[in-house]
């Protein structure tokens, strides 16, 4: 796991290494200060002059400034290292997610991916900083303080042999106890996250069904659960401080009691008062560093869960990958399905597509008609390799789609999906997704073909009108036509319209189809539609049912040969003559 994460440190290795060195310098200096004070106290007892006191004071001030410089320098390098590491990590995550297939995203769910990229990365960033700063500082502090205590206190320092394990065990025990509760909390966060996201997106439904109260109740329950878990976990953690205090005071008492005994029995030759007070300071430093260690332990274990969740994303194999020596050119727009079957996941029982044998010549117009759940969309998504076929081969331009460079293939196959997505940005920016070098004239031409030019020009800012995230400020029909224009700009060899004119009126729909026929005759066009009128004049019409192609042919042929097609056709047309 750490190997995967460490890959993201990259250019921030240097500050990551310098930080601990600086910290060690700071620690050494800090441990020297009590030593000097101890000497000072003894000197005073021995009745020294003022100049000794002043010199010692000066040395201490110098050391303090020096320790500050080290500390500040460490702060810079540590911040640089951790912020940079987090940046790289987010970059790597985002980069990875870009290669994900729909399968991969489904596996994580998008709200969980968001949590991983934000909250989880923050945690890892925080504990990375802790590791290179505090996690180095505390053990060193611990060791140095023990050494110093031993050199000064001798036998007295045996108290630490007793106190340290007690405290260490106690702290560890507490951390152990609290941990599972923290881990559980993470899962609940995903749920809370999802609940908000969903509510914001589906607000019209929530309001329409007057479900505000119910949703509120559900959310309240979830957020209260988080509160309860936190309180429970923190209640255990709250033992830390008192435990620490008690240990500290016990050490004090011990050192004082036996220390004073020693002073008396050896009459100051073995240990003196100055050393005794230094012992107390070291005791404090030792315990504090133990305390810090336990905090780090908690922090790191907590973020280990975050780290695990991040690594999971980084290590996920994209289900679709480019081949070794990809074909980089699509010759023509011919499409061949050879005995293709497909299911969405290996575990799925039912095939979404079975025994598809389909041959489309370059430049043909093909219509697809079929009931809900007949897998029309699935069929066309295999062409641009949004999924891989489970069995059989799909060839575009005579070459197996798995042999193409995916970008090349997807540039040649333009899909306007059923669920059209526009992104925050201007109309132009959205259109240039299709071709980033398109001139304004080309944009307008594509929009005229898609019957979008007129309404875009009617916007106050025309082609520079800003579109909100998800295209919420344009109507469904406008969205669809913008998406068609965007797809056209790619000058694809194959254009697939997946029910993408459903919100467009019949007249406009007809105009779009006529435009396509006249202006890009060489492009293979596949049109999935509910309306027979949309596919009537296609070269070939496929009728799909239950994941199979049950009939294919021209309009006239199908009227005779396919009962389903005939039924659909008569229903859609007879309404006109039926009495209302």
């Amino acid at each position: 796991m750490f190997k995967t994460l460490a890959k993201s440190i990259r250019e921030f290795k240097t500050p990551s290494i310098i930080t601990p060195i600086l910290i060690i310098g700071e620690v050494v200096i800090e441990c020297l200060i009590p030593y000097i004070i101890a000497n000072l106290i003894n000197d005073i007892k021995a009745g020294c002059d003022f100049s000794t006191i002043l010199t010692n004071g000066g040395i201490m001030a110098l050391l303090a400034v020096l320790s500050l410089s080290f500390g500040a320098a460490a702060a810079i390098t540590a911040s640089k290292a951790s912020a940079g590491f987090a940046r790289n990590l987010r970059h790597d995550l985002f980069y990875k997610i870009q290669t994900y297939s729909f399968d991969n995203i489904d596996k994580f769910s998008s709200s969980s991916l968001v949590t991983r990229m934000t909250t989880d990365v923050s945690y890892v960033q925080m504990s990375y900083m802790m590791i290179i700063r505090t996690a180095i500082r505390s053990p060193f502090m611990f060791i140095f303080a023990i050494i110093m205590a031993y050199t000064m206190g001798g036998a007295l320092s045996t108290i630490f042999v007793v106190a340290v394990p007690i405290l260490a065990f106690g702290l560890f025990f507490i951390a152990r106890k609290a941990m599972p509760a923290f881990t559980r909390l993470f899962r609940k966060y995903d749920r809370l996250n999802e609940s908000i996201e969903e509510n914001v997106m589906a607000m019209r439904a929530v309001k329409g069904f007057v479900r505000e109260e119910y949703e509120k109740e559900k959310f309240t329950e979830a957020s209260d659960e988080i509160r309860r878990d936190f309180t429970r976990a923190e209640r255990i953690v709250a033992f830390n401080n008192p435990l620490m205090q008690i240990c500290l005071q016990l050490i004090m008492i011990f050192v004082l009691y036996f220390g004073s005994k020693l002073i008396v029995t050896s009459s100051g030759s073995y240990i003196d008062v100055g050393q005794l007070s230094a012992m107390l300071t070291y005791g404090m430093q030792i315990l504090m560093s133990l305390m810090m260690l336990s905090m780090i332990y908690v922090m790191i274990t907590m973020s280990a869960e975050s780290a695990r969740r991040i690594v999971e994303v980084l290590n996920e194999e994209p289900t679709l990958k480019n081949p070794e020596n990809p074909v980089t050119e699509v010759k023509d727009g011919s499409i061949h399905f050879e005995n293709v079957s497909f299911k969405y996941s290996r575990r799925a029982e039912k095939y979404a597509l079975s025994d598809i044998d389909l041959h489309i010549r370059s430049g043909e117009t093909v219509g697809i008609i079929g009931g809900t759940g007949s897998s029309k969309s699935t069929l066309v998504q295999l062409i641009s390799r949004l999924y891989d076929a489970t069995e059989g081969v799909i060839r575009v331009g005579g070459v197996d789609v798995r042999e193409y460079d995916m970008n090349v293939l997807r540039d040649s196959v333009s899909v306007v999906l059923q669920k059209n997505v526009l992104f925050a940005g201007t109309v132009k920016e959205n259109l240039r997704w299709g071709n980033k070098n398109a001139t304004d004239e080309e944009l307008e031409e594509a929009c005229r073909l898609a019957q979008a030019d007129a309404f875009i020009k009617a916007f106050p800012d025309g082609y520079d009108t800003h579109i909100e995230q998800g295209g919420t400020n344009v109507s469904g029909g406008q969205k669809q036509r913008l998406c068609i224009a965007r797809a056209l700009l790619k000058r694809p060899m194959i254009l697939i319209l997946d029910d993408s004119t459903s919100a467009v009126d019949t007249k406009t729909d007809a105009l779009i189809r006529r435009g396509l026929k006249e202006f890009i005759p060489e492009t293979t066009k596949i049109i999935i539609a509910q309306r027979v009128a949309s596919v009537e004049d296609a070269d070939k019409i496929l009728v799909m049912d239950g994941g199979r192609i049950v009939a294919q042919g021209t309009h006239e042929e199908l009227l005779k040969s396919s009962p389903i097609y005939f039924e659909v056709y008569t229903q859609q047309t007879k309404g006109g003559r039926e009495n209302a």
Partner: protein
Amino acid sequence: MKSEKKKAAPGTVGKVLFHIKKYRPLLCLSILLATVTVILTLYVPILIGRAVDAMVEAGQVDFSVILPTLTRIILVVSLTGLAQWIMNTVNNRITYGVVRDLRNDAFARIQKLPLSHLDAHPTGSIVSRVITDADQFAEGLLMGFTQLFTGVMTILGTLVFMLTIHVGITAVVVLLTPMSLLLARFIATRTYNFFHAQSEVRGEQTALIDEMLTGQKTVQAFSREEATLARFDEINGRLEKCSLKATFFSSLVNPTTRVLNNLIYAAVAMTGAFAAVAGAISVGGLTCFLSYATQYAKPFNEISGIITELQNALACASRLFELIDAPTEKPDAPDAAVLSNAEGHLKADSVSFSYTPDRPLIEDFNLTVLPGQRIALVGPTGCGKTTVINLLMRFYDVDRGIISVDGKDIRKITRQSLRENYGMVLQDTWLKSATIRENIKMGRPDATDEEMIEAARAAHAHSFIRRLPKGYDTVIGEDGGSLSQGQKQLLSITRVMLCLPPMLILDEATSSIDTRTEEKIQKAFARMMKGRTSFIVAHRLSTVREADVILVMENGNIVEQGRHEELLLKGGFYARLYNSQFAP
């Protein structure tokens, strides 16, 4: 220090305090325990000093003093531990309680926000406020509670105790403290600003991730991975810079305060040494004093740490409050009537409306609908049909004019009851990630399973639901997840079938459903629509012909209105539309 915090985030502190008010008894308990802890902690050095004096001054150890003193120390220490634990527990309770309250408030507010707010704000930024910001706030608040009181108490307490020992040395300590404060202030303001910036950028980034994930298929289909990554990296770089500066300043706190402590400690040691040499203070007294000096300085150390945390917490809180205090939909009028079982008499009287003032949409719209009538909305795309629905259900309020149901202005009816009287099937189906059952029962949670299945049968959804792995208990993903568009729509129809309100809004409900299924649905619709006022946005001829009133819309206006035959005879816009759209 308080005034300083207020400057950083105006009003936020007040709002936070307002939310804490509810926990006043716990808060008092916490302060009480803090006082107890501090007094006990401060008592220990006195005892220790006494023990030291018993050893040193007498030249030999006076065990009759030491033993009881030690026992007392143990007792006091144990008590302190107990008080501390209870205090921490109480503080936890307050903090997580407050955060829960804030989250609930935020969520409740989301429910009340006008849709225009939600339409204009990226989902990701709202989510990041309720989740991440609330969390960071909790962290800061908790730190504040656990350490602020004890810190302040300790400072005050040690000051008093020190004064009783030696005034001169105390003066040295007190003179050095302003340095601490100045430094803390310097660091804190910077930290706050960068933490705030970090929150902002993080929100922006969350929004981008969110958007890209939702549109992943499109991103891939257009091979836009690189361009998207570039945009991401730009934000990511900014986030790094903010984060770097924020963590740098916040991590300065520890070393600088540590140094200040050491300086104070050294100063005390020196002046103390002078005093001891001069015989103004006993060695035991000096030991005791030194331990006070550390204790006195430590809270400053902590308090400046707390200030950074609190600054971050306040930055997050202010973002959360931005959401909680966002203007809501205009609340229902106090005398708003409850509409139950509307007859369905609907009237729009010179209604004007637009989403943005510079782009007028609906102007002077008039309509009268009798109970049980069927109104078809027909017109070219973008003519304002969806907007009409936003207005009918009061997702948006009209700019001018009146819409009334059963003769009552809908602004004088509670929104809840108005919406309860509508059943809608919109273009977007908005299913939740929950079981099919929960989704269907959304409109009527108390419906029995039999009623649910009955509705599913009527909407022709029963057969496909039954074929799902767990039937009605199948959990569907976000926004319907693996279901096809048509199946999603069937579910949303079932939802309406189950509650059957007196008025219906069907927004292109059948656009993605195949014709065979559609015909069955049309029949079910016809049954459902009997006696119910229904608005149907449709492109289909049969729907249009069966309508009592056809509203022909263009550019947000009703250009024609009437029955199919009348309008055809009229030979106007509708006739042209009909001939191009519907004529076979």
